[in-house]
C-alpha cells in the first residue's frame, strides 16, 4: 500500500494532535497533584487533622504485616474510623457494652479462637487495647496495631 506525501502530512498532524492531548492530560494530572499537595499542606497547618500510623498484622492468617504510616485522619478520630480509612472493616455494635466489636478486617473474619485485637505503641512496647476501637480516640502521631491472633488476655 503506497502512502502519498499528503497522507504522511495528515498522519503527522494526527500524531501531533495525539502528542498534544497526551501532554494536556499529563499536565492536568500534574496540576491536580500539585493542588492536592497544596491542600494537604493547608490541612496540616490547621489543627483539624493529624497523622497516625496503623499496622495490620495478619499473624494467624498468613503472617503478613501491612503498615499504613502517616495516615491522614481528622483530629479526634477514633481507632475504628481510622482503620476504616485504610481497610474494609466489618463490625458489630454491642449495646450492652456501648462499644463496637470488630468482626473482620479486609475479609479476614474472626473464627474459632482467632480474633482481631488491637494494641497501641507506648515508648517501649505494645500495650493491649482495653476498650472498643470506637471508644479509643487517637492522638497525633500515635502508632496502633490490629493483630489477628489467639488472644492471651492479660
Amino acid at each position, binding site marked *: *500500500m503506497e*502512502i502519498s506525501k*499528503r*497522507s504522511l502530512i*495528515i*498522519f503527522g*498532524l*494526527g*500524531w*501531533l*494532535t*495525539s502528542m*498534544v*492531548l497526551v501532554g*494536556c*492530560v499529563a*499536565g*492536568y494530572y500534574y*496540576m491536580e497533584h500539585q493542588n492536592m499537595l497544596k491542600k494537604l499542606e493547608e490541612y496540616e497547618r490547621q489543627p483539624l487533622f493529624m497523622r497516625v500510623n496503623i499496622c495490620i498484622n495478619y499473624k494467624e492468617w498468613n503472617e503478613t504485616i501491612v503498615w499504613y504510616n502517616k495516615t491522614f485522619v481528622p483530629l479526634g478520630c477514633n481507632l475504628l474510623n481510622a482503620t476504616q480509612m485504610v481497610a474494609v472493616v466489618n463490625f458489630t455494635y454491642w449495646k450492652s457494652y456501648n462499644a463496637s466489636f470488630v468482626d473482620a478486617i479486609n475479609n479476614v473474619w474472626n473464627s474459632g479462637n482467632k480474633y482481631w485485637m488491637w494494641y497501641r505503641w507506648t515508648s517501649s512496647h505494645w500495650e493491649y487495647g482495653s476498650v472498643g476501637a470506637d471508644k479509643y480516640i487517637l492522638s497525633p502521631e500515635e502508632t496502633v496495631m490490629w493483630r489477628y491472633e489467639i488472644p492471651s488476655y492479660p
Partner: protein
Amino acid sequence: MNCKRVALLAVITALCVGIQLTPRPPNVEATSLICFLVGFMFGACFGALLGALTMFINGFLSPWGFAGIIMPYQMAGMALMGFAGGFYRKILGENPNSVNHPTKILRLEVSSLAAFLTLIYDVITNIGWALPSGIPIIIALIQGAWFTVIHVASNVVFFGSAFFILVRIISSLLGETSWKSPKEA
C-alpha cells in the same frame, strides 16, 4: 447552484443546527462532521459559512446557555472546520479511488484530519475563554484536557465511520461523480 443543491443544502443546514441544539453529552457533537462534509461537497466557502452560521445560532439557543464572548471564537473554529472540508477535497483532486470503496489510508486520513481540526477548534475556543478571564492559554487547555480528549475521540469515530458513507449518499442524491472537483456554492 441548481435547485437540487439548494434544497439539499437547506436540509443539511437545518439538520446541523437541529443536532447542535439537541441536548447531548458535553463535547460530543456532529456539527463538525456536517460542516466538514458540506465544505467537502459544496466548497470551502460554503462550509465555512455553514459553520459560522451554525455556531452563531447555537450561541443564542444552546441548551448550555448563551455563548457570550466565546461565540466569535466558536464561529471561527467551526468555519475553519467547514473550510478544511473544501480544502481537503481540493488537495485530493481527481483522485482515482472510488468513494464507494475508500481505502483504509483514506479513512485514516479523514480521522487524523478530524483529530487535528477538533484540537484546533478547542484551542481557538479555549483562547476565547482564557483571554477575557486573564488565564494563561496553556492552563485553560490543561484544565479542559479531558473535554478535549472526549471531543477529539468522538469526532475521530464520527469522521472515520460516517464521512465516506455520507459523501456517497449525498453524491448519489446529487447525481454527481464524487471525485470531480467541487464547484463553489
